[in-house]
C-alpha cells in the first residue's frame, strides 16, 4: 500500500515539474509569437532589407521612414564597447579573487560585487548622467558627454558583477589537482594561472562573458539616460547614439496600438531578439566545441 502511494507521489511530482518546465517554454514561444505577430506588418510595409539597412527613422513624417540601421549600429557599438571594457576587467578581477586574494578578502569582495548586481539600472543611469558624464566631458574635452562611450562605460560597470561572479565560480571549479600538478612541475603561480587555470575554465569564462554581453545589449534605462539618443549613424564612439532598446522605450508611448509605428517598434524587437539569438547560438557552438575536451573527463 505504501509503495503504491509513494509511486503516485513520485508520478505527481514528476508531472508537476514537467508542467512547470513546459509552461516556461510555452511562455517563451508565446512571447516569440506575439513579437512576430505584432511586428511582421512593418516588415511587409517597408521590406526586411530596407528596415534593417535603412538609415532614416522618421516614424511620423509623411511618408514615414523606418530604417533601423542607426539603432542597430548604436546597440552593437554600445554592447561591444561594454564588452571590451567589462570582460577583461571582470575576468581580471575574478583571477585576483580566485587565485591571489586571501580567503577573507575574497569572501567580502564577492559579496559586495554580487550586491552591485542588485542595484536597479536606473540608479546606474542616474550616476552615469550626473557623475560619470561630466567627468568624461571634461577629461576628453567633448561637446557633449552623452555618447556611445559613456553608455558603454555605464553598461560595463553594470555588467561587471555578472562577469566577475560567474568567472570566479568557473575559476574556483578548476580542480586543485591541476594547479598542484603545474606547480609541482616547477611552474610559477602566474604560469599556472595563465596556462592551466584560465584554459581549464574557458567554457565558464565564455558563459560569464556572454551573460555580461546579454545584460548589456538588453539594458534600456541606463542607456536611454546616457547615450545621447541621436538618431544618427555614429562616426566614432564619442558620438551620441540611440540603441534599439532605448528607442523602443522612448517611442512606445507615442504610438497607436496596431498602427504602423507600433508595428515598427515590434519589428525592432524582432531585430534585437535575432541579434541576441545569434550571439547565444555562436556561444553555444563555441561551447560544445571547447567542452568536447572536457567531456572526455567523464569517460
Amino acid at each position, binding site marked *: 500500500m505504501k509503495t503504491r502511494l509513494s509511486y503516485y507521489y513520485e508520478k505527481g511530482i514528476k508531472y508537476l515539474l514537467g508542467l512547470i518546465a513546459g509552461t516556461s517554454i510555452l511562455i517563451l514561444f508565446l512571447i516569440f509569437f506575439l513579437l512576430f505577430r505584432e511586428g511582421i506588418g512593418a516588415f511587409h510595409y517597408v521590406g526586411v532589407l530596407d528596415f534593417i539597412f535603412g538609415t532614416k527613422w522618421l516614424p511620423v513624417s509623411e511618408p514615414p521612414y523606418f530604417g533601423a540601421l542607426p539603432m542597430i549600429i548604436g546597440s552593437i557599438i554600445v554592447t561591444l564597447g561594454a564588452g571590451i571594457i567589462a570582460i577583461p576587467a571582470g575576468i581580471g578581477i575574478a583571477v585576483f579573487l580566485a587565485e591571489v586574494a*586571501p*580567503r577573507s578578502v575574497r569572501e567580502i569582495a564577492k559579496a559586495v560585487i554580487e550586491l552591485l548586481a542588485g542595484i536597479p539600472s536606473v540608479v546606474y543611469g542616474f550616476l552615469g548622467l550626473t557623475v560619470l558624464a561630466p567627468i568624461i566631458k571634461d577629461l576628453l574635452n567633448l561637446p557633449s558627454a552623452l555618447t556611445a562611450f559613456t553608455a558603454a562605460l555605464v553598461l560595463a560597470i553594470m555588467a561587471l558583477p555578472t562577469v566577475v561572479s560567474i568567472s570566479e565560480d568557473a575559476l574556483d571549479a578548476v*580542480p586543485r*589537482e*591541476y*594547479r*598542484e*600538478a*603545474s*606547480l*609541482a*612541475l*616547477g*611552474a*610559477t603561480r602566474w*604560469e599556472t594561472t595563465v*596556462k*592551466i587555470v584560465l*584554459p*581549464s575554465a574557458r567554457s565558464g569564462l565564455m558563459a560569464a562573458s556572454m551573460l555580461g554581453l546579454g545584460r548589456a545589449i538588453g539594458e534600456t534605462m541606463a542607456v536611454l539616460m546616457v547615450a545621447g539618443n541621436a538618431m544618427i549613424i555614429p562616426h566614432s564612439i564619442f558620438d551620441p547614439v540611440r540603441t534599439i532598446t532605448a528607442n523602443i522605450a522612448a517611442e512606445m508611448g507615442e504610438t497607436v496600438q496596431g498602427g504602423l509605428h507600433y508595428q515598427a517598434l515590434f519589428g525592432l524587437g524582432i531585430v534585437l531578439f535575432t541579434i541576441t539569438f545569434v550571439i547565444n547560438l555562436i556561444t553555444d557552438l563555441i561551447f560544445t566545441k571547447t567542452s568536447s*575536451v*572536457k567531456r*572526455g*573527463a567523464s*569517460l
Partner: protein
Amino acid sequence: MNMLKGDYMGNKNKMETRNLNLYYKGFQALINVSLPIKENTVTALIGPSGCGKSTFLRTLNRMNDVIDGTRIEGEVLLDEGSIYDAGVDPVVLRKKVGMVFQRPNPFPMSIYDNIAYGPRIHGRKKKDDLNEIVENSLRAAALWDEVKDRLHKSALGLSGGQQQRLVIARVLAVDPQVILMDEPASALDPISTAKLEDLIHQLKSNYTIVIVTHNMQQAARVSDFTGFFLNGEMIEYDVTNIIFTAPRIKRTEDYITGRFG
C-alpha cells in the same frame, strides 16, 4: 635479492631531513622527523591515514608552501644543501624534485601538450627538442607504444592507469632528480598497479624515488627502504626487508601484521 637491497646502504643521501617539525595552524603534523633518502633507491613511507606521511612527502618539494598557515622547523637537504634556505626558489627546486599525485591529474589538453608543458615553461621551445622529450618521456614511462598514434588527442581519454603513467612521463619530461609519489596506485586497478610498480623498478636506476603507500605489499615489493610513520612521528626506518620481517619496534610490527591501521 635481500643482499642486493642491503647494498644500497652505501648509496649517498640524495635527500635528508633532520629534526623536521611541521605545524599547521597550531597543530603539529610532523614531529622531529629525521630520515635519509638514498640516491637511486626507492624509499617507501607507510603508516595509517593521517600519520603525516603525505605531509612529509610534500615538504620535500615545498608543496606545503602553497597551503596557508604551515610552518616548518628543522632541515630538509637536497645534495646537502637546505631547500628551505632563503636563497632557494621553490620553482627551481620543484624542477629537481618532481611529484606524482594520488589521483591521476593530467591537464585537460592533449597527451603531447601535457608532456611538453613542463619543458615549455622551462624555456624549451624548439619543436624537434620537444618531440624528442615527449617521446623519450613516454618511453621511459612505458606508455609510448600505447599512445604514439594519439599524441594529439585529449589526455583525459586515457584509462586511469595510463593517465598515471602519463603524469609520470610529464614529471620525467622536466628531468628531475627525485620523484615523489603520493599513493600513486590508490586509484588504479591491479593490472595498472602492477605496470606502475614495474615502472618504478625501472626508474630507480636514473632517479631517486620516494613513495607514500597504504598498501604494505606494495611497499614490500617496490622499495629498498621503508619508513613507518605514526601520529606525525617517524617510528622506524630501515631496509625494507628488515621492516617487514624483523622490525625492532613493537608498534611497527603491530601495524605491519595488521593489528591496527
